[in-house]
């Protein structure tokens, strides 16, 4: 009778150990599945945050086009504002909490790098907010639209029923080019 009871206890113990081991294995399996993508997700989130920082700066009042070029556009930078900002960049040191901001025209392409100043604007392709410091180390970038007001000489007047004479006049239009906004920041600050 005692032997039979011992056998029962033994059976029960084995059973409990087996069930516990089974649950542990299942738990480990689920944990390994859920943790496998965490590092990847963290990197992705970090990249997205960095891109958002670039967008945040591009859409700030100091850079954004607002409604100057028709409707409000996302990531639209007013080049005329930026050229004025470069001239007064000393007053904006530490304003955005980044080391430097650079807007680089990517289309139409330029064969060489020409830094923008009041004298050569708009025939340049790199607008650096703090021109004395180069973009180096850690930086993030995002696509942006670089817009400015341009003009061409066009014909005005001379309609079918009008007696008005066709005249050549300067017509102002919006010129928007493709650019990349690059934000230089200290390592570890954004991620």
């Amino acid at each position, binding site marked *: 009778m005692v032997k039979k009871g011992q056998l029962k206890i033994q*059976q029960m113990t084995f*059973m409990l150990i087996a069930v516990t081991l089974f649950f542990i294995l299942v738990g480990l*399996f*689920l944990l390994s599945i859920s943790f496998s993508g965490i590092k990847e997700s963290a990197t992705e989130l970090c990249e997205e945050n960095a*891109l958002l920082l670039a967008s945040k700066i591009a859409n700030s009042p100091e850079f954004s086009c607002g409604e100057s070029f028709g409707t409000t556009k996302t990531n639209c930078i007013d080049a005329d504002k930026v050229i004025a900002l470069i001239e007064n960049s000393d007053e904006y040191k530490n304003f955005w909490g980044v080391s430097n901001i650079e807007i680089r025209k990517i*289309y139409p392409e330029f064969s060489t790098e020409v830094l923008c100043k009041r004298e050569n604007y708009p025939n340049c392709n790199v607008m650096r907010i703090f021109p004395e410091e180069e973009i180096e180390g850690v930086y993030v970038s995002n*696509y942006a*639209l670089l817009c400015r007001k341009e003009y061409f000489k*066009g014909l005005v007047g001379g309609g079918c029923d009008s007696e008005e004479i066709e005249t050549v006049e300067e017509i102002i239009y919006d010129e928007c080019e493709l650019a990349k906004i690059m934000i230089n920041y200290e390592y570890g600050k954004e991620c």
Partner: protein
Amino acid sequence: MAKNVKIKKSGQEEMVGFALIIIVVAVILLIFLGIWLREDKTDSVESYELNSFMQVLLEYTVDCLENYETDACVKCSKRYYSLKELIIACNEGEKCIEEVDTCDVLEPKLKSIIDSIWKVSENTPLKGYNLKIDTKEESILEIKKGNTTNNYKTSVQRLGRDNLQVEFNIYY
């Protein structure tokens, strides 16, 4: 004999109990797996960077003067088309002021921009791209380069007119 039957019955009950535990755990496991696998994976494929690129691309100013008539001027223009407006004009069969078909301006311009920004070659991570412009009914334009792979990012921009949409895929 009766004792033997009782032992056998108790053993059977234990086996049934164990089998039930296994079944319950397996079901729970399957439910977890099902939820995990059914999570929407489109976010990882849709790219924030590509969406930004598409948004700015569509606002790019193209060398095609909008052609319109007013009371004051038979053929006059005060503005260039943006790429988005050019796509709409192409769909509507309009011409630039220089009598050039808007669709003839659209295709080379798009190709030139994409080729200069998304460089496709054997030595770059980018293996190919595919840009499609279509309405629900018909395809307006398709530009392809390189190979298509299973590792890709996509961006779809709706132009809000005539169900026009631009889909851009890049393959790694």
